[in-house]
């Protein structure tokens, strides 16, 4: 009789525990006993696909590696993609779909800055953790959002790094040529602040339209000031026009780009004028070029999973942000909740990935977790080289 009662009590206890566990998982969207659903959004089509589809491919190969090794605390990672076409309205729609329809647990995403910035309010309201993979707009992480963290360098950090690099290279007469659309403003305003902080005045401050087909006027005005370094806040297209016209007019300053022109090899081809990019330097969020033997493992993974693709720096963006997500999912423990994931992100300090130039450190008051941009250069006809990195305080 006593044994029978003990058996009944034991059985009831196990059932209750199982029921609690089941209820617990059911209450956390996107988490089951054996899967964690992670959403991602960015451009899958259009010119912005470099910042969307390619980082997503990088995330996918990291998830494959983790899943092949048994997942995280026994759960396999599942990636759900949504196309935002680099369009703010579409980004809001994509994020809403991931959160409410797909019921993802967390997200790694954000390719085009303006689109991700537009989606911030929706993400803040839903309090779904997001690790930004490629968008650089300061407004995405400033003021500090509750659940958004960035493993991409932000525009303010890049602008400060551009000025610091010019100074480090011994430039005395530094000029600016910039686009003044929202993308350009997001970089221009912090750059002007950085100039003020260092008590330096730019020798010239010129504008160039994103659709410009000629930069003769800008080049001539900069040349008249004898600028020895030009900080370029431009997309690749106007930057290519600028570099081409600069060479035509015999103006050869140190030209300092940013992650908008992330591939010096492609840029050299776009400029199409031999030698015009010899003094061009640009920022990379990652410390390796796609040809570097250090990323052989990831090259093989990308080229195996996506036949016809070649490893690009944009894949590496996704690989880095996915490695951060994997780490914080581990730290959040088996009883996974969004609050625990956010706490793990807030506590992430000096975490080294396979791709970023410096450690990733987040805090409760600063969700800009990547502050060490690397510098790339390409000698005419030679390979792309990593010159070093600038730590922005």
């Amino acid at each position, binding site marked *: 009789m006593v044994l029978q009662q003990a058996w009944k009590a034991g059985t009831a206890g196990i059932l209750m525990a199982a029921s609690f566990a089941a209820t617990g998982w059911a209450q956390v969207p996107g988490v089951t006993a054996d899967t964690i659903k992670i959403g991602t959004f960015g451009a899958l089509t259009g010119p912005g696909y470099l910042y969307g589809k390619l980082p997503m491919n990088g995330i996918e190969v990291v998830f494959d590696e983790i899943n092949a090794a048994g997942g995280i605390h026994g759960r396999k990672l599942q990636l759900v993609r949504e196309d935002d076409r680099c369009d703010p309205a579409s980004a809001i729609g994509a994020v809403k779909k991931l959160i409410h329809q797909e019921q993802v647990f967390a997200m790694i995403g954000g390719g085009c800055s303006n689109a991700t910035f537009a989606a911030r309010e929706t993400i803040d309201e839903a309090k779904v953790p997001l690790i930004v993979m490629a968008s650089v707009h300061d407004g995405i992480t400033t003021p500090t959002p509750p659940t958004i963290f960035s493993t991409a360098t932000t525009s303010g950090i890049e602008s400060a790094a551009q000025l610091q690099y010019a100074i480090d290279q011994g430039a005395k007469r530094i000029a600016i040529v910039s686009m003044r659309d929202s993308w350009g403003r997001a970089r221009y305003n912090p750059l002007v602040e950085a100039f003020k902080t260092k008590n330096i005045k730019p020798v010239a401050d010129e504008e160039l339209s994103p659709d410009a087909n000629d930069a003769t006027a800008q080049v001539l005005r900069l040349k008249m000031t004898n600028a020895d370094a030009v900080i370029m806040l431009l997309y690749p297209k106007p930057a290519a026009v600028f570099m081409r016209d600069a060479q035509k007019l015999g103006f050869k300053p140190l030209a300092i780009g940013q992650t908008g022109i992330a591939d010096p090899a492609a840029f050299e081809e776009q400029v199409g*004028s031999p030698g015009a990019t010899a003094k061009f330097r640009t920022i990379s969020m990652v410390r390796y070029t796609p040809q570097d033997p250090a990323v052989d493992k990831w090259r093989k993974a990308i080229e195996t999973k996506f036949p016809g693709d070649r490893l690009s720096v944009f894949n590496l963006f996704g690989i880095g942000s996915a490695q951060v997500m994997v780490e914080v999912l581990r730290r959040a423990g088996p009883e996974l909740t969004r609050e625990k994931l956010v706490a793990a992100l807030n506590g992430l300090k000096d975490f080294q990935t396979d791709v970023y130039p410096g450690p990733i450190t987040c805090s409760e008051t600063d969700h800009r977790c990547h502050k060490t941009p690397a510098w790339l250069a390409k000698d005419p006809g030679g390979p792309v080289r990593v010159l070093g990195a600038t730590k922005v305080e």
Partner: protein
Amino acid sequence: MLLLSYLLLSGVTTGALYALVALGIVVVNKATGVINFAHGELFMFSGFVAWSLHVGAGLAYPIALPLAVAAGFALGVATDRIAFRPLMKADVISLVLATVGIAFVLRGVARVIWGGKADYLAFPPITSPEPVMLGEIMVIPQQLAVLGGAIVVMLIFAAFFRLTRAGKMMQATADNAKAATLVGIRTERIYTLSFGTGAAIAAAAAVLMAPLTLLYPDMGFAFFIKGFAAAVLGGLTSLPGAVLGGLTIGVIEALAGGYIHSSFIEVSAFVVIMIVLIVRPTGLLGVSRVRRV
């Protein structure tokens, strides 16, 4: 003086491209009374066709150019058949909306076909990229080739309108469609020819412009706006006016950027247009239609 020479050369080169875009807009508007809002996308699409022929298929530039112009003509004819012909008796708003729809379709198709290859597609230079000296001025042969090409295209189309039977019928239809019908001109065919010719001119502009810039699916609208501004400045129904308008805008942009500040480049031309239209509402070479009673 050297500064002025550089600015004038760059202004005239850019302006010649604006003029070609404006010519296409005016050709269609003169014949049909409709502004083809898909004109920028016809320009963009033709540029990509030229890229596919020249870079993708490896055809020589002199072969790729006429083929892309022919493709532009075909696209213009398709625009007429899809967006204009079925709605010919509808109000102007419906016609304009139809051309806007065509613009979005062309942009979407371009994104699907060429959007996934790179962020921007580079068109190889058709001449040596090394600069040459013209007196004291350093110029890229590419720039001269574009300017020369634009002038040749303008002359060819001027000859087409003045010397060929089709060109004369287009002018007759533009002047008075009812009278043209009465004398036996099949105006519907002329409308088709106008859309095709307008798009062919846009295609020629795109092929000439491509080596100077980079190709991307959203590039059409910016060129359309500049071409439209040039057409309005010239008088909207005047072919020489379109050329004059394009060159004027190109030169004003260059001079304002060089002598005032680069931030004036985008607005200066529009300020001048506003002033011209206040003083002369028909544009520089436009004529107001007067009916004698």
